[in-house]
């Protein structure tokens, strides 16, 4: 059984009469009972990310009476978070997520101690932060932090309850237990940057992090209590559209540099590992940019140029910059022949990521006069025309 630290029952702190009443539906479950509830109270769980997955995780673990919940997040609540990040409220927009989550959790259960780390998890601080916890729950939103969390958990021997989501699909597993596989056994390397869009670019069904986050919370509590069969050596695939749950077998890779050969003895540079900033072709700073203000001036001067929007038609329907032509990135290669290399070309998307890829494609095809609209349509709305809705 892959439990974390398991203090002897006699060493566990007693529950107050308030707590006994609050947790009564747990206490009458033979699998939890008084000792299990005391165990939860003595437990320390670290949540990486207080966003979509982190919200249900924090809420349910707090309600369940996990004694100490650590939260790592440096973000600020944005109104577009509220469609799924249910630990935050409308009144919290603009506040640090840590503060907002702490208030909500304290209100939900004053017996729980919430420890905040207002920082990005980095190779410098990860071991120090994770060391003090029994288990880690990975609810982050990027590959670099996922590999970092994995490696730190393997090095420290802390179970890592994994969950990730995209659009209508999710994955969950329990990594880095003593004999079980790790994230690198499942995916030895991340995809190159830009291949897999983020939730901000690709969208996510608001309920999906609720589905996946509550599965992670369930697995976390099972590990802390030492009950049931945790998702060790199994990958749970969740498809909300067909509402199918499938479990695949996950094996420990004997050649895994983290949990197999243990080549990875210390944390590496995960941005570099994930190809962020290393390859000049992938470097968004290496391509010509134009700001929304400069573009507006260009339009006012009636300069001769083409404005190409590489978003999807359903995004185009929400908001567009006047004078733009829609050429979704998926069909961009086929459309190259329709562009005139003699004219200036400005490429835009929602935030500037996909258009940067399109600019690279144009450059590779020999186009010389191409610019990426910095910050995309969101910054256009901020800097030039607030009547263009942000999404």
């Amino acid at each position, binding site marked *: 059984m892959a439990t974390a630290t398991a203090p002897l029952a006699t060493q566990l702190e007693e529950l107050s009469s308030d707590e006994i009443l609050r947790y009564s539906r747990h206490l009458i479950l033979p699998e939890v009972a008084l000792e299990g509830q005391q165990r939860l109270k003595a437990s320390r769980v670290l949540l990486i990310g207080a966003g979509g997955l982190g919200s249900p995780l924090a809420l349910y673990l707090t309600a369940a009476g996990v004694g100490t919940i650590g939260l790592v997040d440096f973000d600020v609540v944005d109104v577009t978070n509220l469609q799924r990040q249910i630990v935050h409220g409308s009144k919290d927009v603009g506040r640090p997520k840590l503060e907002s989550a702490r208030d909500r959790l304290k209100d939900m259960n004053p017996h729980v101690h919430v420890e905040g780390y207002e920082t990005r998890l980095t190779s410098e601080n990860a071991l120090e932060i994770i060391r003090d916890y029994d288990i880690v729950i990975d609810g*982050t939103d990027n590959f670099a932090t996922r590999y970092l969390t994995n490696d730190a958990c393997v090095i420290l021997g802390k179970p890592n309850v994994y969950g*990730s989501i995209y659009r209508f699909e999710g994955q969950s597993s329990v990594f880095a237990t003593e004999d079980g596989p790790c994230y690198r056994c499942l995916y030895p*390397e991340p995809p190159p940057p830009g291949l897999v869009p*983020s939730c901000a670019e690709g969208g996510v069904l608001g309920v999906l992090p609720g589905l996946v986050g509550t599965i992670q919370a369930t697995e976390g509590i099972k590990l802390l209590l030492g009950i049931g069969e945790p998702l060790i050596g199994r990958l749970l695939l969740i498809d909300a559209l067909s509402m199918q749950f499938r479990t*695949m077998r996950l094996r420990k890779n004997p050649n895994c540099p983290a949990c197999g050969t243990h080549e990875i003895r210390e944390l590496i540079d995960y941005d570099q590992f994930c190809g962020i900033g290393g390859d000049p072709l992938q470097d968004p700073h290496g391509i010509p940019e134009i700001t929304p203000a400069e573009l507006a001036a260009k339009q006012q001067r009636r300069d001769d140029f083409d404005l190409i929007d590489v978003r999807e038609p359903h995004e185009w329907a929400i908001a567009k910059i006047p004078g733009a032509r829609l050429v979704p990135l998926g069909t961009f290669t086929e459309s190259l022949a329709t562009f005139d290399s003699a004219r200036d070309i400005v490429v835009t998307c929602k935030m500037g990521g996909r258009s940067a890829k399109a600019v690279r494609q144009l450059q590779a095809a020999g186009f010389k006069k191409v610019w990426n609209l910095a910050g995309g349509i969101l910054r256009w709305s901020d800097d030039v025309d607030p009547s263009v809705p942000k999404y």
Partner: protein
Amino acid sequence: MAVTLFLPTVLAKLADGRAIESTGETVGAVVANVAARYPNLAPRLRDETGQPYPFVTFYLNDEDIRFNGGFEAPVSDGDELTVVPAIAGG
């Protein structure tokens, strides 16, 4: 061998749907058959040399093909091949 390849929704739009019928003697041949029929899907399944990516896991029925010879893994009639690309959203 007749094998069904299952795609996640995000890739299904690059093909005719989520379940694609294909044939071949090995996983690699089954994937190559699909890749030839759906050129836009092809680069999401394997690299230019026809090799699997480290960030796209293939399950033959419920087993990761990496532990059974990768794209060389033999397939049987009626097998199900499921594509599970890495996702990172949270």
